[in-house]
């Protein structure tokens, strides 16, 4: 890349910084990706014949995806396997070229200026390490610092900070192949932060970790976002990660974006019922029309027309389900208090996992 192109890119960035509206950090516009896979031949010499075949099957992995992510956002990007998640991420990072559509990271196209874009990105692939397998952890940092043109002083300062936050000291000189999964993950996350990128792509950063390790990674990512203002795109199958860290979530399915909004809006939209469990002190009974026996699930309709469902009864409790969008909890409880003396009330929101399951 010549000096001219660099100058053009730089003025482009400066110009956009002058605008009143802050430039989005990550922008995807009409992304499409098609894969042509050769039709696999059967029979003798299948291997050779497949190599020379002209028959192709076209698979649309990503269909017309557009979204905007602003600086300081913490976005969850989820979808079932094969939905096109990793394909999208690869297009955002410049690994894969889109069939059509555009990507801009801080205003720069990663396909035309891969190295420039990537020098401001931090990427963590949870399933594999980017560190040098046989070398001590500190050597990997030394090599990476050099690759990303991070000066010695800056590197040491940052590693000091990261070491405190992530507890790197305990395996500083250990070869990467001897680290436990939790340690390796921390080392990898530190590596991704070495050059102080503005944007982080985290792919399954908590996979396979125990509860304590997960919590410390989550805390660290939260800190990065809230205290250091990093923009983070998190891809994961762990719904707890999403719930605890992200305000906004994008759901991809069959190559298309089926939802892009906040978690609360998603819950509302899906409308899974809330469960309320009331424990009664003493005797209780549900009023029924004369001659009818209790059959579950039983729909209880209020005079106002709103309804909730009784799904389970026990010796001293009743469990009901209702859509909080349609009926207020306070109205449900008022109705139930007529059934007996309530001793204890327990409310459960639908599990986020179940919500997501419905979206998929």
């Amino acid at each position: 890349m010549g000096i001219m192109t660099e100058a053009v890119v730089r003025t482009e960035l400066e110009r956009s910084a002058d605008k009143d509206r802050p430039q989005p950090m990550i922008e995807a516009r009409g992304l499409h990706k098609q894969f042509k896979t050769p039709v696999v031949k059967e029979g003798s010499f299948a291997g050779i014949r497949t190599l020379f075949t002209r028959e192709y099957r076209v698979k649309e992995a990503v269909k017309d995806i557009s979204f905007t992510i602003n600086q300081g956002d913490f976005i969850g990007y989820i979808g079932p396997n094969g939905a096109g998640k990793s394909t999208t991420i690869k297009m955002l990072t410049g690994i894969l070229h889109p069939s059509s559509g555009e990507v801009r990271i801080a205003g720069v196209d990663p396909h035309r200026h891969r190295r420039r874009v990537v020098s401001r990105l931090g990427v963590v692939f949870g399933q594999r390490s980017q560190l040098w397998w046989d070398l001590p952890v500190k050597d990997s940092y030394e090599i990476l610092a050099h690759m990303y043109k991070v000066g010695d002083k800056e590197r040491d300062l940052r590693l000091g900070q990261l070491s405190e936050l992530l507890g790197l000291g305990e395996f500083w000189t250990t070869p990467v192949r001897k680290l436990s999964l939790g340690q390796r993950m921390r080392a990898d996350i530190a590596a991704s932060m070495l050059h102080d990128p503005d944007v982080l792509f985290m792919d399954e950063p908590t996979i396979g970790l125990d509860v304590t390790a997960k919590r410390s990674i989550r805390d660290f990512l939260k800190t990065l976002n809230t205290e250091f203002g990093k923009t983070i795109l998190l891809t994961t199958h762990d719904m707890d990660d999403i719930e605890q860290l992200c305000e906004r979530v994008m759901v991809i399915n069959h190559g298309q974006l089926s939802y892009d909004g906040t978690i609360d809006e998603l819950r509302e939209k899906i409308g899974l019922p809330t469960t309320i469990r009331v424990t009664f002190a003493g005797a209780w009974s549900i009023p029924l029309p004369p001659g009818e026996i209790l059959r579950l699930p039983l729909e209880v309709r209020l005079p106002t027309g709103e309804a909730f469902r009784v799904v389970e009864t026990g010796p001293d409790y009743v469990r009901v389900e209702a859509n909080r969008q349609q009926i207020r909890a306070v109205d449900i409880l008022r109705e139930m208090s007529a059934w007996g003396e309530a001793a204890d009330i327990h409310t459960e929101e639908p599990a986020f996992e179940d919500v997501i399951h419905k979206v998929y």
Partner: protein
Amino acid sequence: MNIRYWLHLYFVLIRSSIRSGMQYKMNFLLGMLLAAGIQIAEFLMIAIVLNKFGAVKGWSLYEVGYLFAVMTLSKALYRSFANDVHHLENYLTSGDLDQLLTRPVPVLLALMSQNFRMMPGELLQGGFILTWALHGMMQAGQITWIAVPFTFLVIFTGAVILFAIGLTTATAGFWLTRINELQTLTEDASQTAVRYPLVLYPVWLRSILLVVIPVGFVNYVPSLFILRGELGAWVLLGIVLVAAVCLFASMKLWTFGMSRYQSTGS
């Protein structure tokens, strides 16, 4: 990206590799000696034969030893720096190549900096046979001291040529994915072939080893001038040119292969 940047990067990488390799000194030393010994066995095979029968098609044992040593040293140089290029198949099947694309450096250089492989056994064996051969020929008055710097040049250009061949074979991996078999042909077989003087082979094989897979320019062609005074000094310039052309062509092919990889994703 300037030279100083890369030199420094490699320096850090090499130093780390050596440090971690040297951790178990006994193991390292033993490994080195065993590797050298095992490699020398291959040369001993031909040495025993030539010792019994004299020269082969006009090539003495010293000359054959020279061919052997130059090839070993060129190969060691190439594989030390570009070992993971040779093992590109692993990167393609595991998807690890994507990771390298997230680094702010050209993919090829990222690939090469993944691993610096120390090959002390090969260096020891090659160095030993080379010294022995050069010494023997100098004693017999066949060559003078000038052959030594010429040889170093040739080892370097040889490494470049082997690198170009290896890179081209690896590039085929973008289409074929599995390139182990191909590598056996373009690298193992051809490198073994030119350890012996090309005059032994029929013309068709000689042509392949010069034009199609230019390994002949790694050791044979230069030795015609350096050891036997044939052809003339321009040969050395020619070798440098051949190396440059091969390098250029292979890198262009690599770029083409990479862009295909980034479009098709596999």
